[in-house]
Structure formats: C-alpha cells, structure tokens
C-alpha cells in the first residue's frame, strides 16, 4: 500500500515534469519558411531527373521556372517577426497546466480507482496458505490438481460431495461417476450420484437417480440418504402415504444425533402442506466425513470456510429457518456447542422470538442437544 502511493507520487511527479520541462531549458526562436526548402529540394530533383534523362531539357526548364516563381511567392508570404509573448498570460497558463496534472490525475484516480485492492493473480491465490483460501479457491485448487491428475480417485472422492453442496450439480455428477469408476462403488458414492442427478433434474428423483439410490441401498441397506430419497421418489409420484411411512421408519432407525432426523421432520411437514425449505449451502456430515481424506489443513480450512460462509449468509437472510437449522447442525457436528447455541439465539432473534418458526428452530436444536443459553 505504502509502496503503491510512493510509485503513484513518482508517476505524478514525472507527469508534471513533462509539463515543466520547457520552462527548465531555453527555447529556440521561431522559424518559418520551410516551404522554401521543399522547393529547393524539388529543384535538385529536377536536375537528377534531367541527368537520368527521365525528362526533356525543355520540360526541366519549364518546371524550374515554375518552382522559382513559387519560391518567390513563398518568400513574400513569410510573416514578419513574431509577436511578443504576453508574459503574465504565459505564467498563468503554465501554472494552471502544472496544477491541473496532479489535481485532475490524482483526484480522478481517487474517484475512480480502488487503491486498497491488491493484485490477485490466480496462481498466487492458489499457492497461498489454504487456510486463507475461500471455498471457491479450494475447489479451484482441487480442480487444477485433477486436471493434471485425472486418475486421482481420492481427489474426485473429496470433490464430488463438495460440488453437490455448493450447487454445482452437473460437475458433481461427473465427479461422482469418476470416483465410482476409479474407486469402485460404495453406498455413499452411489447415493451422492443419486443426489447430484436429483439436483441436476431440478430436485426431481428421476429414473436415473433412483437407480443410483437403489444401487446404494444394495451396497448398504441402512444408507439413510438412499432410504430418504427413495421415499421422496414415492412422494413425488404422489404416493405420500407410503413415503411418510418409510420416512417414519427411517426416523426410528436413526440414532438420536443424526442430521437426517431434522430433514425427515421437514419432509414430513412438507407432505402435509408446509412450505418447502430453501436449498442452500453449508457442509453436511457426509461431506465432513468425505473430507477426511484431505490433508489436515485443507480439510479444516474447507469446513471452516463453508460454515463461515453459511453464517455470513444467515446474517443477511435471518428469516431462513432451514439455513439456521443447517448452521446449528454444522456447529454441533464440529463440536462447537457454544457457537451452535449462539447461532440458535441469533436465529430465534432473527425469526422473531414469538414466531412459530423460532419455536420450530428451538425444537430442532433440542433434537441435537442444543438449548438456548440460560441467561434469558
């Protein structure tokens, strides 16, 4: 920053110098009559043409005579001595000019420029310490790594669920397919593929996505994601009763602290006419699990980044119940109980303490073992 202003000052000074320069050295007097020189040159050219016999002597004489007449005319027209300069006007003009450069230059820049923003060359951004990277930068790092090593199964395995969470469904489908073909299928990968296809189709469980969930269930009969979505498929086909039955069964099978329980509660509410929750970001438990394969720093940074981003988003949109639920769940999964409590409190305030949404949020948090701080 300091360096920038020093360079800026030097540049401005140099620009001013260009304006002052004529006042620092004496100026030659005015010259006129260049046209006479041109005519002399033409005379010489006629001689050359004549020597080469390109023109006849008669033509040459005629041309010379005419050029001679023009030289006389040019000499007549030459203006007599130059006017005296008005020295005070000169001084005013010069002063204004010298002032104009820094005032207009620096002033204009301060109005238009963004001196506080540093250069952000992509390579430098990606080489920086991962903990300072944003989620997008971390994803870009992983992508760059995978462009060079497309056979790195672990890389795809990490990236796939992250794509899913940030809403890049199309990339997620490719990444899940890659990890399945490179690492072999397992329930989490197949279920992830199903989820990606579901999102790609605009939150519809298509035939293709259903097959993926069924394969996941074949690999692990208890996979909650696959069970949840297969139930959702029934709901989307209109069979809400069987869907609700399956969800309730899943709910009972799940351990107390499972994040899926909240989702199921919501889904059940939805089939009974409650508004649909907003799809949003924030890491899920699977993702945190999947991130286990990353290096310690990268993983921590990624999760922190996602949670921080979600928290920020919630500050701007405090009336999104689903978002608050995700944030509280994330904090509780990370073991940051204090933050979870704080988020719950902000959420309740944001939604309005007496609102039914706030009550729902308190109920959801209670399911995770988080309660409002006692101070109230």
């Amino acid at each position, binding site marked *: 920053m300091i360096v920038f202003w020093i360079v800026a000052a030097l540049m401005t000074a140099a620009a001013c110098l260009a304006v002052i320069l004529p006042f620092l050295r004496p100026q030659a007097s005015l010259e006129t009559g260049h046209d006479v020189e041109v005519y002399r040159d033409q005379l010489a050219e006629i001689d050359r043409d004549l020597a080469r016999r390109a023109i006849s002597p008669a033509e040459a004489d005629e041309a010379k005579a005419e050029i001679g007449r023009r030289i006389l005319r040019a000499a007549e027209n030459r203006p007599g001595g130059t006017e005296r300069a008005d020295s005070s006007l000169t001084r005013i*003009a010069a002063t204004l000019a010298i002032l104009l450069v820094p005032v207009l230059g620096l002033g204009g820049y301060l109005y238009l420029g963004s001196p506080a923003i540093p250069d952000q060359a992509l390579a430098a951004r990606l080489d920086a310490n991962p903990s300072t990277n944003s989620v997008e930068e971390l994803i870009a790092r992983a992508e760059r790594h995978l462009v060079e090593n497309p056979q790195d199964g672990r890389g795809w395995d990490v990236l796939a669920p992250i794509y899913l969470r940030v809403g890049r469904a199309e990339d997620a489908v490719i990444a899940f397919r890659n990890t399945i073909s490179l690492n072999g299928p397992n329930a989490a990968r197949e279920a992830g593929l199903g989820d990606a296809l579901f999102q790609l189709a605009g939150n519809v469980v298509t035939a293709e996505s259903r097959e993926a969930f069924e394969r996941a269930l074949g690999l692990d009969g208890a996979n909650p994601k696959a069970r949840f979505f297969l139930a959702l498929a029934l709901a989307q086909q209109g069979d809400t009763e069987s869907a609700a039955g399956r969800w309730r069964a899943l709910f009972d099978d799940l351990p107390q602290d499972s994040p899926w329980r909240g989702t199921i509660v919501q889904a059940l509410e939805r089939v009974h006419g409650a508004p649909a929750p907003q799809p949003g970001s924030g890491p899920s438990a699977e993702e945190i699990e999947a991130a286990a394969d990353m290096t310690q720093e990268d993983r921590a940074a990624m999760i922190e980044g996602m949670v921080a981003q979600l928290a920020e988003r919630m500050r701007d949109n405090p009336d999104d119940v689903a978002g608050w639920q995700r944030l509280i769940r994330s904090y509780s999964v990370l073991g940051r109980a204090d933050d979870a409590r704080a988020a719950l409190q902000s959420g309740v305030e944001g939604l309005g303490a007496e609102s039914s949404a706030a009550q729902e949020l308190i109920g959801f948090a209670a399911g995770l073992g988080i309660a409002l701080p006692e101070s109230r």
Partner: protein
Amino acid sequence: MTVEIGHLALVLAFALAVVQATVPMLGARLGDARLMAMAAPTAMAGFALVTLSFCSLVAAYVTSDFSVANVWQNSHSLKPMLYKVTGTWGNHEGSMLLWVLILVLFGALVAMFSSNLPATLRANVIAVQGWIGAAFLLFILATSNPFVRLDPAPIEGRDLNPILQDIGLAVHPPLLYLGYVGFSISFSFAVAALIEGRIDAAWARWVRPWVLAAWVFLTGGIAMGSYWAYYELGWGGFWFWDPVENASFMPWLAGTALLHSALVMERRSALKIWTVLLAVLTFSLSLLGTFLVRSGVLTSVHAFATDPARGVFILIILGIFIGGALTLFALRASELKAGGIFQPISREGALVLNNLFLSTATATVLIGTLYPLVIEALTGDKISVGAPFFNLTFGLLMVPLLVIVPFGPLLAWKRGDLSAVSQRLFAALGIGLAIALVSLVFIDRVSVFAALGCGLAAWLIAGSVTDLAFKSGYPKVGAAVAIRRLMGLPGAAFGTVFAHAGLGVTLLGLVSVTALEVEKFVTMKPGETLDVAGLVLNFDGMMPLRGANFVEDQARFSIAGADGKSLGEIVSAKRVYTARRMPTTEAGIRTFGFSQLYVSVGDPTEDGGIVVRVWWKPNVTLIWLGAVVMMVGGVFSLADRRLRIGAPAARRRQSERPA
C-alpha cells in the same frame, strides 16, 4: 498494485492530454515558444503513461487476475497464453485502450520527428492530437474503464469468445487501428493548417508519409480481417459488404484518394483546399467506423461486445470533431490561396479523375451503409442493403477507374500527351485483350464478364510494368543501361508500380474465385469419396480430441490427385469451448499454388454420415497477396528519401557526410 498503477497512469494520461490539447494551442496564438514547447514532452509522456497502463492490463490478463472485471469477463485461466495476451483487446474496453495507445503513439511520433516543422504548426498539430486523445481517454474512463475491480475476486473467468481465440486477433485489430488512427495525423495537420489559415506545398510533403504509413497499415488490416473471416467463419466468404467491413473500407478509399491528391498538392501546389477537406473526411470516416463497430447500431456478422449506450458517447465525440473541423473548414477555406491551374490531360488531371472516382465510390459505400439507419429513423421500416447494391454501384464505378489507372503514371505533369501515352500502352493493351480472349476460349465456364475482368487485371499489371520500362528508358536504351537507370529510380516510382500492379493481382483473384469457384455440398459417410476440381477427397472418419480449453470432433479427409497420388490430408472440426459451452466450426484449408481447397463440416446425419461443404477456390490467395503487393508499394514509397519527414534535413545530413 500493477493494476492500480495502470489505472492511475490512464487518469494521468488524460490530465496530460488536456494540457497537451490546450496550452500549446494558446502558445501558438500568443507566439510564446515555451508554451508551444509543452506540446512534445506532454505527448511523449502521455504515450509512456498509456503504454504503462496498457502493459498493466496485459499483465492482469497474463496472470489471470480476476479481480479485474474486464479480465474476468473475457479470460479464462486455461486459455493458451497467446490468447490471454490477445484477449486484452478482444473486448470493448481493451480494444478502446489499444485504439488510444496507437493514437498517442502517433502523437509521440509526430512530436519526435517534427523538429523541422514550423513551431506554430507543430504546436497546433500536437494539440489537435491532444484533443482527440483527451476525448477518447475520457470516453474510456467514463464509460469503458477496463480497470474496474471486483472484490472478492471470482475464481474463474468467463472466457473469451472462441471465435476470437485465433492468431487473427493478434494481428488484425492492431494493424487496422494503426491504419484507422494513423489518419488522425493528417486530420490534425489539416485542422492545424486551417487554424493557422496557411497551407503550402511543404504541408503536403509533411503529411504524405503519415498518410502513406496509415494507408499501408489499413491495407494490411483490411486484408488480414478479410482472410480471418474467410477461414474462421467457415463459409468461405471473404467480403460480405457488411457494415463493419464498410467501416474500414471507407477510410481506405478516402485515404487512397488523399494519397493521390496530396501528391498533386506537393508537386503542383494545386488541389490545396480539396486535400485539406479530404484529410478531414478520411479521419472522420475512421471515427464513423469506430462508432459503427462499437455501438452495434447496424447488424453485423463481425460485431462483438457492442453497446449502444456507449455508442452515444462516441457519436458525441464524432459530432464535435467532424462538425468542428468542417465548420473550421467552412470559415477558413476561402482564406487558403487556390493553387495552380493545369490542363485536363496531364498527370494532375488523371489524379483529379482518380479522386473523383474514389470519392464518389466512398460516397456510395457510405450511403449504402447508412441508408438502413436513415430509413429506420424516417419511416421505422427495417431494411438491409447488401452485396447486390454494392456490387452494382461500387463495381460500376471501379471499372472505368481501373481502366484509366495505367495512363496516370505515364502522363507528364502540367501538360500530357495522351496519344503518346496510348502508344506506349499498346503492348499492355494487347496483353490484356489476349488474356481476356484466352480465358474466354480455353478455360471452361468463363463468362464474358469474367474474361473481361481477367483482361482488366492483366492490363493493370502490364500497364504497371510498362510504366517501369518507360522510366528506365527501355527499349530505347539497352537492357544494361535500363537496369542501371532502374536502380537509380526513386522509391516512389516503384511504389506506384507495385501499388497499381497489386490492384491487378487482387482483381485477378476476385474474378477467378467469383467465376470459377466449385462448390460441393454433400453428406458423406466414412470411406466415401468426393471429386472436386480434379482432386479426390476421401472421408477417413471422425476423431474426438481434447484441446486446452475445448473438445473437438475432427473430420479427417485424405486428398489424392486424379491420378491417385496422395496429396496429404485436410482436417475440419466441430469444436465446443467448455467454459462458454459454445460450438464453433473450424474449416480445413489446403493451399495448392494460389488456389485453395476449403472444407467445412456441418451436423452429423441420422444415418451415420456428416454434412460436408467443400469449395475449390481458384487463385483465391491472390486477393490477399495483391493487398500485400500494394503494401510493398506503400513501403517503397515510404522509404523514398524525398518523402521522409524532413527530407531537406536528410539531404543536409547526407552532404555533411565525408566523401
């Protein structure tokens, strides 16, 4: 920091341009040497600052600094390095910055090489350059700032339009702008002369090299643009009479006229007022071209990233400069002393005729280009004026001009002898008629018009050679003497010969392609063959490939002669650029002599084949080679010592050299 330094440099350059535009002009008015002397250093410092600014933008592109909005919108980190650099001017903001960079470059060159100009003229010329520079720098800063930042910075850019990811972008815009903007110098000289109310033969001598240089660049720029469109758009056309093409063609026509009228003014002190007007009009047409291209008011196949809102700003600049210059002209033209009188049959007479034809041709192109705008404004009807209009009007005007071209250089100044010149051109006329006859009788499918076109082309080339032979004294003197004399001829003489012969070469290419082109339009399955103009094209099959930032399906064809001898292969491809998901077609081109085989693939058909369009384009490269020959002529002329800036000074230097 680099980016912000570039931004600051641009603002400082604007401040300097304001000083450059005002103070020297005041100095010239007051006769104050110091105020006038401010012109050159401000022009040079302004050039240094804009260069710095431009370089910092290039640096942002090279390092993929997506905190710069312009880089984010037009670049991608995976793009090959060459296209990262050229992408700098592959968008509105960057191309305007390049435009201004070239403008201030010319300003700095004038400042550097004008020490032999009268001080007041020099101050006024540089000041007028300053006005143009200030106006366009303000335009950039106010409406098209390439240094707008994004915070936080996106992680990946939106990529450059794939059509522009081509070597053509590296060459075409810089050349074209060197031409366009080069005419600003003659404009500034003209306005300065009008301000002073004095103009003489020396003026023409100072202006002509700048006009010549701009003309050479513009010729190259137009030819390059035409070739680029030819191979990139995948439909084998090289000139569409599109508004954007016309926008570059009009300054070229006017500049060609200016080149010739300046010659008359320099040699005979005649046509002064007309030459000044032409200098003003030529750059006005350049500005109009910039406006048409940047604003997108006319539908063009070549328009990229246009923005009507910014167009209004350019329109205002256009109005002020053209209106101001023409008003000044109207006020001062009567004060300029009219020049000498001459006979209609003379070199001057021929050049006047040239100007008459060229300026009329410029006017028809201008009318055809702007007519849709006028009609829409008047009646609300949307119409288009296309190739048929231009071919009829422009073509009819060009034929007589081309017929008289060989006469001009052979006529003497002041009073010429038409019958003597005609006698000298007998041989050329014979060659022209013979060629026309030969093409009519011996080559298939040639119509009378095409035969006459070939004859006209031959007449132009033979006429140019005649001119050279006559100047050398051949056949009156022996070959040895003639060659010695040829060596002694001034560069400008060769310039004329090459420029006129180049015209003939281009015409030959145009006529050949128009009359003899073979087009085949078929569906092919792998293994099938196609006969085109004596060549056999065998479709080998499709091959998927992955490039740096695209995937493509290559259609590969092997070529064989009629006798079955293999002549290599030709590849056309369908590409999809991944970042924008934008498909493009890459044409396959193979050159045989001056002719080309051009293959372009279309969509696959349901039965496993592919649509293929194949052209045999006889002598097509002559169109652009002719332009190159014209440029060579321009360079010869420019290298002529007499023409260089300060020819008198150069002469003095030479005499100082020890014998």
